[in-house]
């Protein structure tokens, strides 16, 4: 099927630089690559590895503020880095196409899908408008979009994320290009949606024999999609090999460490004592936004015990973050009770006493928006200490330093920094420190690792685990990532459509017999095995039959 002898695309010592603070700094530092006709190459690496830049470079394109600084890109005999604008422009759509990470943001909101689909098909004179539309509908059908006749006549915002991603793949296919660049096409999707999109993409690429570069940070995904994998780090190739070889026997230390990420697991804890009073408890909580007809939370009851982690898991819109908001008093329940150490907790944070506010603290998903960019670390961490615990002067400074030590940041170095002077993982650590600074009983961790690279995320999980032991904290751990749940949870709550589908000790939830939704969720998590996708799909077909 693959013909690697006559490469469609080659990169020789490709170098790309980006402008940062008035200096040109290398982003891609001499990458060599060769892609045969019909071949799918997976590019994998953490953020900052330069994988998107290489992907775009394959189209002869660099973003504003970047430039080709060396090397060559040959596409079917055409050298792209030095080609004039029209040459490069004319290749796009017709011969090279691109599928972006966020389809919702990458479709023009002002036009209907089908018009965007047919735009260049018609402009380049490949088809008449009518033919183009027919063809689009055919592609929609092949990509298993619902209502293929009609869906193209919707605006982007009227179509769900997974469908948009398939529509974008269809658009990339419109001119039947020789090469498609997939830039993290499923990263923003829920796992149950992701599996469908992955299947659709793989089928159509196979069907048309299109070459593809598949960019992702997710090993399990790339294992399903790629014939060959290239691992990137800091703009350089770490190693490249056939998928099977790469998975079975990575050569480089870095690759091995990537492969090993999922090894962390918190220690097993004894079951909760029957007479133990939960630190915080939700009893039949139902919540509703004033402007909405139906409740967003329906009869939710969860208990949080000191020293234990309750993982709340579900897809977007399942109500897991809303539960946290109700708990914080930001969305007062319309029904049900919240208890703090067995005593009722006011529904609204405005009515809570300082002690009550102190007891429940939150760590946010996006450290960027959770930390005031104009406050120094000293103030960010110090304020809750002053506010709740009345610490001042030297005592305060010492406490801050101790806490920084606790979160494994060198106090002297970090105490006076601004959030913008920290890396993503460091910011998240400050977020943790701020929650701890208050001296809480329950810490809500809302998707705290989702935005982080795997290695960094693991560090955060280890830190949280350590702190839990040290401070006997109760955690509410909100996540959509099953592997994180496996790693850190003591109890698991599975939510869907604002309701609890299933809850119980981790071992119970993750072992058969499965509740159907939990089963769907679990089985949709990609596995490293290249045959996983085929297997799951086959299993599902069998089940539904």
């Amino acid at each position, binding site marked *: 099927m693959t013909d690697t002898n006559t490469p469609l695309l080659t990169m020789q010592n490709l170098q790309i630089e980006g402008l940062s603070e*008035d200096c040109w700094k290398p982003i891609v530092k001499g990458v060599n690559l060769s892609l045969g006709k019909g071949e799918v190459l997976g590019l994998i690496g953490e953020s900052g590895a330069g994988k998107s830049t290489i992907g775009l470079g394959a189209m002869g394109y660099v973003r504003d503020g970047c430039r080709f600084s060396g090397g060559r890109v040959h596409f079917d005999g055409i050298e792209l880095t030095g080609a004039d604008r029209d040459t490069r422009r004319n290749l796009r759509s017709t011969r090279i196409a691109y599928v972006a990470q966020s389809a919702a943001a990458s479709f023009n909101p002002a036009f209907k899908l089908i018009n965007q689909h047919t735009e260049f098909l018609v402009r380049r004179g490949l088809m008449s408008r009518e033919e183009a539309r027919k063809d689009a509908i055919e592609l929609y059908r092949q990509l298993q979009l619902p209502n293929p006749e009609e869906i193209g006549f919707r605006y982007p915002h009227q179509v769900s994320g997974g469908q948009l991603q398939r529509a974008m793949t269809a658009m990339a296919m419109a001119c039947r290009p020789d090469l498609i660049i997939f830039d993290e096409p499923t990263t923003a999707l829920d796992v149950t949606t992701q599996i469908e999109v992955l299947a659709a993409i793989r089928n159509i690429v196979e069907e048309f024999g299109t070459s593809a570069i598949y960019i992702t940070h997710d090993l399990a995904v790339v294992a399903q999609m790629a014939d060959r994998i290239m691992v990137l780090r800091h703009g350089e190739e770490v190693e490249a090999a056939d998928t099977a070889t790469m998975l079975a026997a990575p050569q480089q230390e870095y690759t091995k460490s990537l492969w090993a990420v999922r090894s962390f697991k918190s220690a097993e804890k004894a079951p909760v004592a029957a007479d133990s009073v939960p630190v915080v408890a939700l009893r039949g909580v139902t919540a509703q936004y004033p402007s909405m007809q139906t409740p967003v939370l329906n009869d939710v009851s969860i208990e949080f015990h000191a020293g234990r982690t309750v993982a709340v898991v579900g897809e977007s819109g399942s109500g897991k973050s809303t539960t946290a908001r109700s708990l914080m*008093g930001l969305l007062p329940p319309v029904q049900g009770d919240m208890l703090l150490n067995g005593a009722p907790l006011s529904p609204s944070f405005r009515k809570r006493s300082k002690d009550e*506010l102190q007891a429940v603290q939150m760590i*946010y998903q*996006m450290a960027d928006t959770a930390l*005031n960019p104009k406050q120094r670390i000293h103030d960010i961490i110090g304020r*809750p200490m002053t506010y*709740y615990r009345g610490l001042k002067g030297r005592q305060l400074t010492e406490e801050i330093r101790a806490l920084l030590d606790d979160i494994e940041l060198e106090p002297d170095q970090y105490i006076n920094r601004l959030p913008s002077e920290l890396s993503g993982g460091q910011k998240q650590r400050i977020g943790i420190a701020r929650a701890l600074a*208050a001296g809480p009983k329950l810490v809500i961790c809302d998707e705290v690792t989702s935005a982080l690279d795997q290695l960094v995320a693991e560090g955060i999980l280890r830190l949280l685990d350590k702190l839990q032991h040290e401070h006997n904290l109760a955690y509410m751990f909100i996540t959509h990532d099953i592997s994180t749940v496996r790693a850190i949870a003591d109890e698991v709550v599975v939510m869907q459509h604002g309701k609890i589908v299933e809850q119980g000790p981790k071992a119970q939830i993750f072992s058969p017999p499965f509740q159907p939704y939990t089963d769907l969720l679990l089985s949709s998590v990609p596995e490293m095995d290249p045959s996983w996708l085929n297997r799951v799909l086959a299993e599902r077909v069998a089940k539904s039959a």
Partner: protein
Amino acid sequence: MNGFLYELRKAPLTAKFGCVVVVAYILVAIFAPVLAPFGESEVVGYEYQPWSTDNWLGTDSLGRDMATRMIYGARNTIGIALLTTMIAFLAGSIAGFFAAVLQGWVDQLLSRAVDVVISIPTLIFALLLLTIFGASVTSLIGVIALIYATFVYRIARAVAMGIVVMDYVEAAQVRGEGLWWIMRKEILPNAAPPLVAEFGLRFCFVFLTISGLSFLGLGIQPPAADWGSMVRENASLITFGDLTPLIPAAAIGLLTVAVNFIVDWMLHKASGLKT
């Protein structure tokens, strides 16, 4: 400060030009009595004398030295415009932050009140209020500040609305922080950059409004020198091909251009666009 100078050295030519002009104006305004060859409203000769070594820019319609009045005009016009803009920003920002943080009826009330003021033509409203309170410098500053505070309110509110949805503001609210603390510590530092840029623009508008009012005879009252009324008083000369009366107008234009250049540069930097 060093950081600023460093930034300035890398700034585009237009921004450098803007800074030089603004500094020059400020110096002239501060040292007006030292720099001016004559008294502010001293009659030194016949009206409309041509440029000469004694009267660099000739004399005005009453025989006062134009150059002297230009210099004093810088002081009056800029000083008043600056003070007015500052008051407008203080009042407008506080109200805007207030509305953004509290939302609900406070926001509704303030916003609707601002709608009312904004929908009355600026010059007419100023005219009415200035006739009521008399065309003194104090009421001029008060009235223009009130009118411009409404524009500032809208901007400050919009900026603050973008900030209050940030998690760190929510964190502060949930921590139990008071309104004043949230406005001062969480919102103000983050709203400052766009507001500062807006300050530059609004300063220009205030400046133009005041000179417009002076032109209509309602702004800074004679015999105080003011660029707007200087144009009006001497406008007849233009008919005769003498463009001296346009010098004060050009001075207004130059300053606003300069401020705009600086603002543009700051906005450019703030937006993170490539230079």
